[in-house]
Every structure is written in C-alpha cells, then in structure tokens.
C-alpha cells in the first residue's frame, strides 16, 4: 500500500501570507478556494488578474497566486478591471472579486456602468449580508428583520428599505452574458457554485460579455453565531430570500 495525495490547497492558492487574517469560520476562504479551483481547471493561472476593492473580500485576493493581484479604491473595482482589460487589449482574464458592500452599495454605479458597456470581465460578489470589516453594519443585502449593529431592532423596510437581488437585477442588461447565485453551505452547493464560476470565466474566455456570480458566505463574527449555526442560518433564512441558480446564460449578445 502507498499513500497518494488527492486533495490539498489548490495550485493557485498562495501560502506565504498565512496565517490568514479572516475570522474562524469565515467562508471567504472557500470563495477564494473555488476561484482558484475554477482557474486551475481552466488552465488560466498565468493569465488571470484579480482586482479587489476594500472589505473582507479584499483579503481573498491575498490568497490567490495568479498573474497579478491589484487592490483599488472602495467600490471602483469594476472600473479598474475595465481599465486593465482594455489597456492590455483584452488579453488577460480579469476577475473583480468583491464583497456585497463594495459591489452593490458604494460600487453600484460602477457595476451598472460595466454591465451597460458589456465589459468582458467576471465579477464575483461574496454576499455575507452585512459590512463585515467595519463591524457588521446594515448593507444593501441585509435581510428583513436581520439584526446588525446599525439596526439593533432588525431591518425595518420602512426605514432601511429592502434587500438587493443583484443577479436578478442584471438579467435585463444586454451586455450581461451570465448571472448566477451560488452558496457554499453544503458540499453539493459547493460543487454547483464551482460549475457557475467555471461557466462565468468561460464567458469571458469566449469574449461574450460581463459575467456575474454571487456567492452566499457565512460571517460568524458579525452574525454572532457559531460557524455551524451560520450554515443553518444560510439554509433557513438566506436561501429563501436569495434563491440559488443561473438567472442568465447567453451564448451571444445581439
């Protein structure tokens, strides 16, 4: 009998920055792992540039070992991604790795403009239903009645509005080739989300249009739950509000 390795950290996972600065049980690590896996399986590690804004999702980008990794001002991730994609004549695969605050709060204008222009980039939004880095304040994706540090009584729609559904919102944009939402709370959802990410990167390789994947991810520190309770909360509360699946999958834009 001999021992062979069947699974360790993905090839494009970067070890040198460990120990990671994410909290115990924070699933941003799994989001970065999925991106690394998808990139490895498509064989584009040396050609992929990851752009990341401010927020916990910015830490994800420190975990990837690809062609380049760039931090940019808060919310301007899609703009910087556009600039890099165009300045290099569309050659690299550009991934904007964002959190929900970066993507749909301060960066909503950038995302919508990129979608209107049909920019050939891939946007990944990790949705943890609050602003994690600054201490768990209300975000556009916070669920109704969810307690955050700025809505101690729970989110009241009369005062704070309704949750944002980003992939559904992007469907009518003609420049958008792919929009999907996945989760990583079970092994089955993990595999499904990896397929979404591969499909999204493939849209960019085929030069069709903007591809977008939202990933629901646990935030134990700011939800004030244990990591395993967070997975249950995603299953029971978040998935009914944010249904998983592919919302748009266009082979060409005309």
């Amino acid at each position: 009998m001999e021992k062979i390795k069947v699974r360790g950290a993905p090839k494009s996972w970067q070890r040198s920055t460990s120990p990671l600065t994410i909290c115990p049980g924070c699933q941003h690590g799994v989001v970065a792992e999925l991106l690394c896996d998808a990139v490895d399986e498509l064989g584009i590690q040396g050609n992929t540039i990851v752009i990341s804004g401010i927020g916990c999702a910015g830490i994800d980008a420190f975990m990837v070992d690809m062609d380049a990794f760039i931090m940019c001002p808060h919310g301007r991730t899609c703009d910087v991604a556009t600039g890099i994609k165009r300045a290099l004549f569309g050659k690299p695969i550009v991934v904007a790795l964002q959190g929900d605050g970066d993507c749909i709060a301060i960066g909503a204008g950038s995302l919508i403009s990129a979608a209107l222009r049909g920019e050939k980039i891939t946007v990944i939004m990790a949705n943890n239903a609050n602003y994690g880095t600054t201490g768990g304040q209300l975000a556009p994706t916070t669920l109704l009645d969810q307690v955050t540090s700025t809505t101690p009584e729970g989110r009241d729609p009369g005062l704070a509005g309704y949750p944002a559904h980003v992939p559904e919102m992007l469907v009518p944009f003609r420049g958008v080739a792919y929009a999907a939402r996945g989760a990583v709370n079970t092994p089955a959802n993990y595999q499904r989300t990896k397929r979404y990410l591969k499909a999204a990167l493939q849209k960019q390789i085929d030069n069709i249009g903007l591809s977008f994947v939202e990933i629901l991810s646990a935030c134990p520190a700011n939800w004030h739950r244990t990591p395993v309770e967070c997975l249950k909360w995603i299953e029971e509360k978040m998935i009914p509000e944010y249904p998983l699946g592919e919302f748009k999958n266009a082979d060409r834009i005309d």
Partner: protein
Amino acid sequence: MTRGEISIDERYCLGCGYCVHFCARGCIVIPGDRFTTMGYLLPVFINLERCNACAVCAWMCPHQAIEVYKYVESGQNEPEDISSG
C-alpha cells in the same frame, strides 16, 4: 473499500469546526485539550478505518489546513483528483 487519511496543519487551522461537521463518517473530532499555534481548538483525525478519502473536509475548510491522502496498491499510483467534476 477505499481507505484514506488526512493531515491537519496546525499553523493554518482556526478551529472553526466545519471539518467535524461535514465528515459524514465521523472521522474528525475536536477533543478540547489540543490547540493550534494561534491558540484555537485543534481538530484531530481519529478514524483511519472509516475515512474513504472523499475530501469533503478539505473542500469545506476555509483555511486550507487539510490535506487528504488515499491508500492505493503499489504500482497503480496515477493520482485521481476526486475534487474535480
């Protein structure tokens, strides 16, 4: 039956317990008296007989602390990546 083994790197583990939760065969436990280098509770692999190298623990570990090994007969050692697909 396929037999497997995992190693948990205590430099990277943050003791979240996802591996214990997701191992359907109960191969991992957090005994409570072992700690990682950063002071979190360290999970321990206990069951060499039951682990079938499914690698679910390594998928779900957010900190990439787990490596999964499979036992094969000597000679047939082309690694089969069960994580893809």
